[in-house]
């Protein structure tokens, strides 16, 4: 940037600043405003209020309560369901994305892209209802399996249990993985594998030394996105459970609009802040990997 300004004929510092401002900052102003108003300000406000007592005095009590039972179990369950649903969906989703992008016809690719888009955004009460209709105690699939001699509900299975919720979440996690991982597959150029083969690399060598390292940061990024979506899903879990499977988003919902719990709005906000911290912690390893791989990914 600076070299261009100098070419312009040694302008004053002020003009240089103005030029760089117009060129670099001004186009970003709308984005910065949106980020400021819809992201930074609400988070700042949330953090501020989470340190307030009901009498508007400073306190750590909300956070002390937030790490005790039953909220602690809520966090553990939420992290567990986020990790498990992401881990189970990530590998098959990545494999599917690979085969669709490399082997599929363009028609198939387009169809899958549209379908994944729809399925990944299927959530909330409709999703819960679909699963009741299929896998509920009266569901069609349940009845079919029972006719084959497998009674799903002979034990303690239920869609409102941890395993049940995990199955339901996979329904949107798998297509989400296909969507977010496909661009990484597309960016793997055929020339690289051809070049590697010309230099004598086996298929196995190519994947170990080139393919996987290139895909790894995107894989982790996709995994974290899946974790976040499972970690924070609200409406589906709310439709399927009655509070026996504590999950942080549901607990926050109960504190904010419940008819029973009293005067604990700020506790709900403290739980929200802890959720943000957990999500942030999940992003840090990604940044480290990203920086490392960015070094040789350039060009």
């Amino acid at each position, binding site marked *: 940037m600076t070299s261009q300004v100098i070419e312009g004929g040694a302008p004053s510092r002020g003009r240089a600043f103005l030029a760089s401002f117009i060129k670099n900052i001004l186009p970003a102003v709308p984005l910065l405003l949106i980020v400021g108003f819809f992201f930074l300000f609400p988070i700042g406000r949330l953090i501020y209020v989470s340190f307030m007592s009901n009498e508007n005095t400073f306190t750590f009590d909300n956070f002390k309560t937030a790490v005790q039972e039953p909220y602690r179990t809520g966090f553990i369950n939420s992290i567990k369901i986020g990790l498990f649903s992401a881990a189970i969906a990530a590998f098959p989703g990545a494999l599917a994305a690979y085969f669709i992008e490399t082997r599929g016809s363009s028609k198939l690719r387009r169809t899958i892209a549209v379908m994944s888009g729809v399925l990944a955004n299927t959530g909330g009460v409709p999703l819960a209802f679909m699963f009741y209709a299929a896998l509920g*105690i009266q569901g069609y699939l349940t009845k079919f399996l029972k006719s084959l001699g497998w009674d799903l509900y002979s034990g303690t299975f239920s869609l*409102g249990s941890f395993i049940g919720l995990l199955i339901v979440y996979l329904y949107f996690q798998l297509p989400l993985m296909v969507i977010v991982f496909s661009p990484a597959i597309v960016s793997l150029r055929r020339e690289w594998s051809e070049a590697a083969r010309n230099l004598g690399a086996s298929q196995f060598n190519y994947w170990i030394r080139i393919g996987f390292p290139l895909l790894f940061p995107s894989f982790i990024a996709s995994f974290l996105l899946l974790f976040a979506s499972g970690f924070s899903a609200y409406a589906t879990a709310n439709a399927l*459970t*009655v509070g*026996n499977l*504590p999950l942080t988003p549901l607990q926050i919902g*109960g504190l904010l609009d419940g008819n*029973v719990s009293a005067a604990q709005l700020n506790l709900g906000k403290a739980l929200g802040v802890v959720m943000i911290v957990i999500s942030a912690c999940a992003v840090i390893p990604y940044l480290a990997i990203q920086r490392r791989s960015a070094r040789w990914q350039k060009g």
Partner: protein
Amino acid sequence: MTIQKQPDSIDIGPLVVAQLTPPGSKPLSSPYQVINWNDIPNAAKDPSGLWYGNYGGKLAIVYNTTLPSVPTKATDFAKPEYKGFVGITGDPTSSNQAFMSVLAASIGNGGEKNLSDVTKGLALFKSVKAQAPLVKVNGTNLATGTAKLGFMWDFNALGIIPAAKAAGLDLKFVYPSDFVLQAPPYINAINIKSPNCANARLWQEFVYSQNKGKTAKELTAADLKLPGSKLFALMQGGQNYFQQSGADPIMSAAMTKKNLLVPSLLDFKVPSTAKIVGPATIADVLTAREQIISSWASL
């Protein structure tokens, strides 16, 4: 016209009373006493008019007629033949109806002497849950047969039964044959930040009016052109709407004396063998709440 940021009046579960009038700081509602103020029992109102009960209900057992036997009392919930179909309307730490269901289970399971102690109710749900996770007993799940048995407000029968019938299912409501819980009433209050407090007061006058009069359906176009006060005298009072729909209007005792009560549309009655317990006081339910909050999540 500006967008209202706050509601004028609120209609909310009794457990929130403590939140409306926090000890040592300013109440969140503004005092008002309706014309028929003296007809509200003293236990169900704040002496200065910061809040007042408007209607209560009794907990009935809702069940699907395809169950292998007819449930008659709370302890039946734990019968193995109902496994997988028994549940609760929501999370009792945030839903008032679910909260009162735990209380109703408690009095049916030997806890009828002490309404502030719901350990017996928690124990009953725990033994149900030991067989299979609790299902969510709501309109959708009842109408699909996913949920077949649980407690519900008696006044929900008029909405739930026809909806299930339309879906081809036969639901029935009965009161427990041993102990029936008369729950503390839902309360009304005027928001202290009410954008239009005169509007709020007028609404309260309607909610607490006692006329037999014409229902909303029966009013003619000519009636609607009458001056407000004449129209008001012609309309069925708010309390009678509660009565009609099967709830217990808070002024029912006074209205019975004045012969102003219209018939209820419910087609089931408290059996002669049963004893009505309650209404539980606010202090009772506040104590019970602590037990539920501390043990429901890990039931």
